[in-house]
């Protein structure tokens, strides 16, 4: 890191130079604004540490000039005047931070660490952007489509802040993956990421899960246990399906979010935590508030920054990338030699409606992988998986054999639909092609052609 120090007091400047050299920075020190303006273009500093009171002018002028010239150059201001106004003005003008005199070496270390962390994050986000442009991958998320690109841009911005984020989206859209990506791109990434599904934990246990408990707090609490807030200290806590939490617990959590303190169940000690809270829900939030499932004040506290994940049907152009990505992942674990998906299979995947979103796609690819002969997943394997999936996921649908409705979903292809309809009708007709053709107002010859086309067995010979 190249650091330019602009400080007219020589002992302070020399001391700062030495300390920054120890931190393995490349350092140059000057005593006036004029010297700084001459030195900056040649030295090309990444960071400038500038005193606000200089013999030939105001450090704020340099701050503004420098930010206008190079927005990536970070400025740290030094001031002997412990006025919050000066510091606020500097921060508004784009200063990275300010240091109050008398300078304490530890304070300088903290600011440099934060700066270095920020620069690492920026580099990481740049790498991710490059990776995104080349491969469509953004951390653990994938998508080259415009809705996903837009989402990645928002995530890269929101990750830098500590603001609570509420991630909304249908089931299976990847809310937890988005939460992990936010954590991985934040300054908290070296600290824990703890996720809890509020709908999956018993209401009797969730309070203890979140806040921990003291020994003897309730029957079975034979020792003190840390909760998720303590475990996530310094990191991120992800409250999945937050609308499933009781109203009473929402009140308690609201207090924790406001005061950053909590007590273990059965404890008296106030514990302080530094946790960024991310939350998610697949419910309609307005409805949840209306129905009293989500307290409005709690919602506003969680929803400082809302993030909505698009359902897969709104970015179907990403289906092939996602399918190949899941296949690579599965093959790297299971190594059966199935490494590709043919174009017809990809077309079927792209045409599917994906009511279960990315999670459903991942499961379909996995099932097709298991059913396929190496090295390729073909259309037949996929059709078979999707058909059996429909049977499994349509509990209200009657058994495959026998009369009853044929389930239809938005995005199904006409071919698929026709195939299912023929199968169902043939089953109803107990395999009689003539009878099925009559039911479908087709000639037996036309039905036979379709049976051949769709490779449907089951016609009585």
């Amino acid at each position, binding site marked *: 890191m190249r650091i330019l120090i602009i400080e*007219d*007091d020589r*002992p302070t400047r*020399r*001391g700062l130079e030495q*300390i920054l050299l120890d931190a393995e920075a490349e350092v140059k020190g000057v005593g006036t604004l004029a010297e700084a303006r001459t030195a900056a273009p040649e030295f090309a500093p990444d960071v400038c540490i500038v005193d606000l009171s200089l013999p030939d002018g105001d450090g704020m002028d340099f701050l503004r000039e420098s930010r206008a010239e190079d927005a990536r150059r970070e400025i740290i201001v030094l001031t*002997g005047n*412990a006025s919050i106004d000066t510091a606020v003005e500097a921060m508004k003008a784009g200063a990275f931070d300010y240091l109050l005199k*008398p*300078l304490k070496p530890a304070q300088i270390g903290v600011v440099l660490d934060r700066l270095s962390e920020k620069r690492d994050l920026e580099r990481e986000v740049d790498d991710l952007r490059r990776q995104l442009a080349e491969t469509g991958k953004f951390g653990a998320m994938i998508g080259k489509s415009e809705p996903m690109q837009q989402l990645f841009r928002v995530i890269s911005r929101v990750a830098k802040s500590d603001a609570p984020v509420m991630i909304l989206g249908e089931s299976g859209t990847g809310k937890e993956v988005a939460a992990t990506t936010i954590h991985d791109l934040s300054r908290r990434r070296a600290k824990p990421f703890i996720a809890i599904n509020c709908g999956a934990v018993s209401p009797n246990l969730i309070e203890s899960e979140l806040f921990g408990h003291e020994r003897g707090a309730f029957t079975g609490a034979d020792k003190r246990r840390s909760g998720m807030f303590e475990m996530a200290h310094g990191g991120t806590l992800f409250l999945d399906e937050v609308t499933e939490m009781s109203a009473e617990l929402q009140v308690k959590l609201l207090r924790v979010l406001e005061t950053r303190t909590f007590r273990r169940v059965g404890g008296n000690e106030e514990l302080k935590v530094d946790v960024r809270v991310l939350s998610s829900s697949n419910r309609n939030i307005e409805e949840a508030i209306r129905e009293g499932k989500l307290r409005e004040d709690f919602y506003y506290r969680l929803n400082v920054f809302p993030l909505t994940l698009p359902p897969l049907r709104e970015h179907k152009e990403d289906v092939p990338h996602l399918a190949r990505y899941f296949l690579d992942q599965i093959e790297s674990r299971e190594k059966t030699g199935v490494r590709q998906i043919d174009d017809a299979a990809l077309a079927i995947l792209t045409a599917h409606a994906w009511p279960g979103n990315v999670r459903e796609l991942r499961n379909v690819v996995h099932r097709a992988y298991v059913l396929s002969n190496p090295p390729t997943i073909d259309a037949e394997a996929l059709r078979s998986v999707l058909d059996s999936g429909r049977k499994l996921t349509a509990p209200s649908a009657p058994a495959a054999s026998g009369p009853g409705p044929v389930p239809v979903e938005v995005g199904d292809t006409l071919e698929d639909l026709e195939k299912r309809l023929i199968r169902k009708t043939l089953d109803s007709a107990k395999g009689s092609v003539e009878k099925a053709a009559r039911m479908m107002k087709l000639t037996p010859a036309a039905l036979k052609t379709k049976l051949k086309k769709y490779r449907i067995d089951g016609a009585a010979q």
Partner: protein
Amino acid sequence: MMLTKDGVALARFYGDQNRALRHLLRTVRHEMATPLSGALLHVEVASRRLARGEGAEPAAVVEGLRTIQGELERTAALLDFFGEIAVGTEEEPRDFSISEAVSRGAAAYTPEDGVVVALARPEAEIFGAPRQLEEAIAETTRILLASGKAVEWKIEALPSEIRLLGSAPGDLAGGAESAFRIGRTPEDFARALALVRLRFVVEGHGGALELSRDGSHVRLAASFPRAGA
């Protein structure tokens, strides 16, 4: 003394002194921050050098220690300065003639030394601490004379206020406010302390001090409320 009967003038004076002292303390604290920074940073540097085993070649460590000593001496001088002024506020206040106080302050110098005092006619009085003003004038005269070789003090009695005008050859590089900044050279340090002291005395008497540049001269303009005004 008219207004002390109901304590109004006295209360106002102590209020002004208190405000001026707080302003002075802020200035001193602000100015102390820089040498303290230098000292703290060099203590850290020396400690790191010794930790790395560079004590075997002690020149750099000794140089660092000298810097620390210099910075602490500078800090101590600022504290002494504040203490001296704070003690001066214990003076019993009364009505007094500005002309007399300025004359006494400049009494060590004659026109041959380059110091001229033009007194107000008719006599003009303010309520406050004459020794404070006398000492501030003595110090400012000495400093201005050292850099400019000539100092002129002029007192004007206006209906509602009394003006004390000072003039000496010199410059105000960096603006009027920078003249009150405690510089690093002994001359800058002394000049700033003299001006800060004069500003304290003027503000401590309910007045205001302005510095400006007029051609080749630095001009000081202090205004005081008249006694009983």
